């Protein structure tokens, strides 16, 4: 390659020195990498692509709720608050019971409730899978409530024993 070329030198930019070919260098590896990167981004979206994935509707048709007259079918707090902050409320309840021994809660409408996940919440929402789990699964949330609190059937057994 090192023969005496007939050219000026590197500072004669415009004519003498060969122009760099207009192509993509090392494109094989880099573009492959780029494609892999884009695939990795897109991959999680593929299974649901084009499908509509509606949010689950919590099922409120439990016997306990149905028994109540229409206008008394209200939760302890406003619906909007409960949707966003029910975990906060449960956390506060736990603290009140465990730390202060307080079992009374005044709800949004001034109505008093017993502070108890099992006896108050699950009394109405006895359908854990269709009420709690449905949304928790949808949002991929794993609450640690159920580590201690039992679900409905076992609770009834426990009650029977207590009696």
């Amino acid at each position: 390659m090192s023969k005496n070329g007939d050219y000026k030198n590197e500072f004669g930019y415009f004519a003498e020195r060969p122009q760099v070919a207009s192509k993509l260098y090392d494109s094989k590896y880099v573009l492959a990498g780029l494609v892999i990167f884009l695939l990795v981004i897109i991959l999680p979206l593929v299974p649901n692509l084009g499908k509509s994935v509606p949010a689950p509707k919590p099922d409120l048709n439990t016997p306990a709720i149905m028994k109540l007259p229409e206008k008394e079918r209200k939760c302890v707090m406003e619906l909007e608050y409960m949707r966003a902050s029910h975990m906060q409320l449960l956390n506060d309840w736990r603290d009140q019971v465990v730390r202060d021994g307080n079992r009374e809660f005044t709800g949004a409408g001034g109505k008093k409730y017993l502070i108890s996940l099992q006896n108050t919440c699950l009394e109405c929402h006895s359908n854990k899978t269709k009420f709690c789990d449905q949304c928790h699964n949808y949002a991929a949330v794993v609450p640690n409530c159920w580590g201690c609190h039992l679900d409905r059937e076992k609770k009834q057994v426990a009650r029977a024993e207590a009696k």
Partner: protein
Amino acid sequence: MAKVPTPKELTRINYRPPAKSWMDTKPEFRPGVYLNAPSPKWLEMIGYPYPRKWSVPDEDWHLPPDWKEIILAGMEDRLKRFRTLKLFFDICVRCGACADKCHYFLGSGDPKNMPVLRAELLRSVYRRYFKTAGKLLGEVAGARDLTEDVLKEWFFYLYQCTECRRCSLFCPYGIDMAEMTILGRELLSSVGINIEWVMASVASCYEKVGHIGATPHAYKDMIDFFAEECERITGILPEVTYNRKGAEILFIAPSGDYFADPGTYTYMGYLLLFQYLGLDYTISTYAAEGGNFGYFISHEMGKRLNAKFYEEAKRLGVKWILGGECGHMWRVCNQYMTTWHGPATFLEVPKSPITGTVFEHAREHKMVHICEFTADLIHHGKLKLDPQRNAHLKLTFHDSCNTSRAMGIFEEPRYIIRHVLPEGHFFEMPPNTIREKTFCCGSGSGVNADEYLEMRMRGGFPRANAVRYVHDKYGVNHLGCICAIDRAVLPTLMAYWVPGMEITGIHELVGNALVFDDEIERTTDLRDRDLVGVGKAEEAEGEAEDE
């Protein structure tokens, strides 16, 4: 009362006002801290643009009228040709990991010597003219106009980078300041701004023999003289041939080894070794310079000088090339030479004629580092060595930046040292100052001019400081190196910072230790210094006579 400054005022004089931003501070060209402008004749010799008389401290550098367009066109062109430049301009996050790794920053305390900021000097112009954000937002986007002051600043700081790549080692993205420095210096060259020390060396090397600009016969005389010196000291006269066709090996050493002490003693070491082996080699008066100052100012000029290696090897019909102890020569040989001129099909894969070792790792390049060659000899037990002849040395080894960070030759020289020095005479400097983390001598990349002495003393201080540590602690009195620039500048550096240190090439030690069958009894080393034991014995004799 007389108006004199108080001591407090004097120490608080901000010699580079820190309150201002880096974009607003300008360099001050004081004697001792800038390099001289080149005389036009050198530029003319190699066909470089805009040869003219100008002077660095002058206000007017007599730039060509369209200098700005030239620089910007040059930058655009280089962005097209070097992915490195684009990438290094774009991806720096200014994390500051490189800041305290530069020997110039450590020695001078000038914040613009932090590699990140030195690069930013170029990068700010890139942003202003090649990036949309910089075009629109200007200073807030870290962009600034290309002005004469900016150009002068480039000149000042790009020649305070010795292309040692220590910063690149610590950079999480491997951003290589050396690459940007070379390309920046190319841009400066395109408007005729370069330095006397480099241009004189390049032009001389281009047309004559080596950087010093000798003639072929003076060069021959010089090496013949070394051979005679060898004979005077050892009784062995090495046989040297020049430009001999049909030799097996072409030997190329840096010019520092045949004109300047103490490199000359290293050259004597080479000659003795080759004589000992009866090596079929020759030295060329054409490809006589291993060093390559061209590489310090542009990739192309590096190639133009380097072209002589293979040309001469082809003309002489040798089988392979052996290279001497040199730093940047080996950076060029290792990282550029095959790409520039290869593959060298007219040569053979290097094979040691003594041990039969095939240097597979150099199979395309066809060139072997003399330390690789000698280490292989020692490993195969082909050399009879008497380490006691180096007993007057206590040695520490300075890894040259180029061979360390652009090649990785660490073990070979150490292996040789361990075999030519008596046990317990070799001391390493602290680990964060050697091997890949080695500090530069402060004078690499063509800034080893004498007018630049003050700056070089600053740049070399971190290295000297580590040498001083082993000097004080272990009484080390010799600093070994495998680089001709090291051998040229470290004596100066040491004379200032660590008086009492001598500099030596590794093959000088080999020359001392080599035992020939038919040599005369040696009383001195290659530098005419008494060997341990010999001098004392003489003294004792003298005393006896006096009595």
